[in-house]
């Protein structure tokens, strides 16, 4: 066993931390306040190669593997959940589907500019009545010569309002279910028939675009079918597995920041004649959050190692997402409590972290769905087949 990071990964972390503290930290509050996407940060991240952190070098990537990608998400999550979410939607699910199942031509055409940040990606799965329940997808794709005509729409699409490239899940054979009946497509947002219908006003991650997309006779060339016709579900599930792991990594960063803030404040703030650090209520909170952060850290990087060494990881990725989001929510909730009034003020980063953290228990498959996935896998090993 060896739990140390390689010198390359250590250097990568140093680079990202510096970038996050210098380039992201100063604008994080403003992104939240102004409901603005960090376009400039995304451009810079692309320029120094970080938007291709886990993709192979032949397609413009850095080749730092899933562990390198987790380091990126952890360090961004420590400073700004919105920025981490933009990056996660771009790399982790948007571009990832092309990396995993794209043809060499698709990768050259799409993955290369995505890895360089010249184009931004989004992942189009969720619909009004199909989120975690992918079998209920209504967006329809009908073959017409060398093209597919897509009609329908998606909701709650992260990066949806400004992405250039969107992978879209659509029904190609309504007689079949999720397996066999749906196909993944690569579409471009400037094509006719692609419309951003609305931007959501959210409690947190306000530095992200969450959009409703409408497709009206959106013509997608057959060469943009991602993976095989009828196997979109498989393509998307693989991306989602990766996304769940790295969402856990972003949550790790958020929880880590909560510990850092709390310790700093408990050292500084005096009440009843002593620093808060001397109060057991506070000590308990710090001890609990620090323990959970360490447990999460070990889980996240173990799963990253499993991905990088080609081991199955679906089950553990679900745990990363579920546990990570709950660790972050609990840690940030405690940080808010420790900071008292300041924790509730939008002049301090904790209020933002509190609002931001809450979404991780919901998106990319609610934690209820993760629990179903985890339980299903466990019971399957014991010969019991359960349904959601």
């Amino acid at each position, binding site marked *: 066993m060896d739990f140390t990071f390689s010198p390359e990964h250590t250097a990568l972390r140093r680079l990202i931390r510096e970038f996050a503290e210098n380039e992201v930290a100063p604008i994080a509050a403003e992104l939240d306040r102004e409901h603005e996407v960090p376009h400039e940060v995304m451009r810079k991240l692309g320029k120094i190669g970080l938007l291709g952190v886990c993709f192979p070098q032949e397609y413009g990537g850095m080749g730092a593997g899933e562990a390198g990608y987790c380091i990126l998400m952890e360090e961004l999550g420590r400073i700004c959940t919105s920025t981490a979410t933009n990056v996660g939607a771009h790399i982790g699910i948007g571009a990832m589907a092309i990396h995993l199942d794209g043809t060499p031509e698709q990768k050259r055409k799409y993955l290369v500019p995505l890895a360089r940040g010249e184009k931004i990606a989004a992942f189009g799965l969720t619909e009004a009545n199909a*989120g975690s329940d992918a079998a209920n997808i209504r967006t329809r794709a009908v073959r017409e010569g060398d093209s597919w005509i897509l009609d329908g729409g998606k909701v709650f699409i992260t990066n949806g309002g400004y992405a250039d490239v969107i992978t879209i899940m659509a029904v190609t054979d309504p007689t079949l279910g999720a397996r066999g009946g749906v196909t993944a497509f690569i579409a471009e947002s400037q094509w006719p028939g692609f419309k951003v219908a609305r931007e959501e006003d959210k409690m947190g991650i306000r530095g992200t675009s969450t959009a409703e997309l409408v497709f009206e006779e959106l013509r997608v060339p057959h060469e943009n079918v991602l993976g095989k016709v009828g196997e979109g579900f498989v393509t998307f599930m693989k991306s989602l597995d990766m996304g769940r792991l790295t969402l856990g990594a972003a949550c790790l960063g958020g929880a880590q920041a909560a510990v850092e803030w709390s310790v700093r404040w408990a050292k500084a703030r005096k009440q009843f004649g002593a620093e808060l650090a001397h*109060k057991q209520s506070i000590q308990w909170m710090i001890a609990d959050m620090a323990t959970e952060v360490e447990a999460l850290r070990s889980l996240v990087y173990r799963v990253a190692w499993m991905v990088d060494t080609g081991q199955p990881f679906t089950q553990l990725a679900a745990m990363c997402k579920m546990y990570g989001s709950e660790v972050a929510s609990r840690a940030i909730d405690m940080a808010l409590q420790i900071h008292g009034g300041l924790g509730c003020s939008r002049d301090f980063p904790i209020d933002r972290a*509190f609002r931001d953290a809450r979404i991780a228990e919901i998106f990319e498959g609610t934690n209820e769905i993760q629990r179903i996935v985890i339980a299903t896998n466990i019971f399957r090993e014991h010969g019991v087949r359960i349904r959601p």
Partner: protein
Amino acid sequence: MDFTFSEEQDMFRAMFRDFSAKEVAPKAEEIDHEEKPPVDALRKAANQGFLGATLPEDYFGAGLDTVSYALLIETLARDCMSMAITLATHVSLAAMSILEHGTDAQKEEWLPPMAAGEMIGAFALTEPDAGSDVGGLQTRITPAGDEVLLDGVKTWVANGEIAGLFLVFAQGAEGVEAFLVPKNTPGLTVGYREPTLGLRSVTFNTVYLEGCRVPTANRLGKPGEGQSIAQRAQDRMAVALAAAGLGAAEAAISTAAQFATERVQFGVPVAKKQAIQSYVAEAFVETEALRNLIYHAAWLADQGEDLSLDASTVKAFGARVARSVTNRMVQVMGGYGYMEDYPMARKYRDARMLGIMGGPTELHYVQVAQRVFAEWDIEITP
């Protein structure tokens, strides 16, 4: 034992619901997003007598008992917690302090305009370095004949921006003193408004006191009584805050439960899923426990029992239930719980602040522990 409401309490509750549905609910989302204090609703509440809710009729109050008052706060908070807290700050912290500790002259001067809503009350206790720790107040009192000069900074003064009268706590030679300071008093400046996580229609302001000259006739109680005046006020407020938490929890459950019957996933409404059922059931159990705790505490107060016996218990539990219930109801609604176009996100943000304002839960637990350990004669300090 008798757990039923009196005919009068039933009638009041119906009236509160009516009022809240008509005057509070329609504006709740808008005033939250625009961070505007609920001035229209306050004016209309004044017309109904709600701003003098628990004041006696002699002072043009509505003469409500504590149970009915809890019902009022609960009902308002179902639709808009900001409105409930604004009103409770005025009634429980400001007006009732004057009723309880004021001279006849003070009561006659201040209570009728407060009951009529012509003068909104605020409570200026917290300072940058003294919130829960009342003994550590830095605001100073300098005697000047039959006046005093107040110097210091107060933070997180609820109703700061809309108040006509501030109840200011300061440190004098004989301990903490409380003064009634009208808004237009030279030397009193209402400053910075905190941008808050929740309760965005409650104005929390910094108030500066610079050589603020106040007649000694405006002192509430005797010198040295300030600390107990503050404690009494916070005990009353604790129950009101818990009642606000109860209202938020009830409304959150009803909104999320309805959503769960309409939201179909995997072929059935999510209400059919056990995970959702257990979220709703746990929330319901906690909410019912809170309801009984609050009404019981309010009833005890109406029997003339000392409220401080139960205030910390009620407040700590109310904050916890409001937070855990709204948190789970966000989860029931999934992505829709996170969107500001639906009321759940606001309820969640609002509810979280109950664990901080009026004293953090940790401090209330110290007070609860003091009570538990009292039997063994051991001193428990925060």
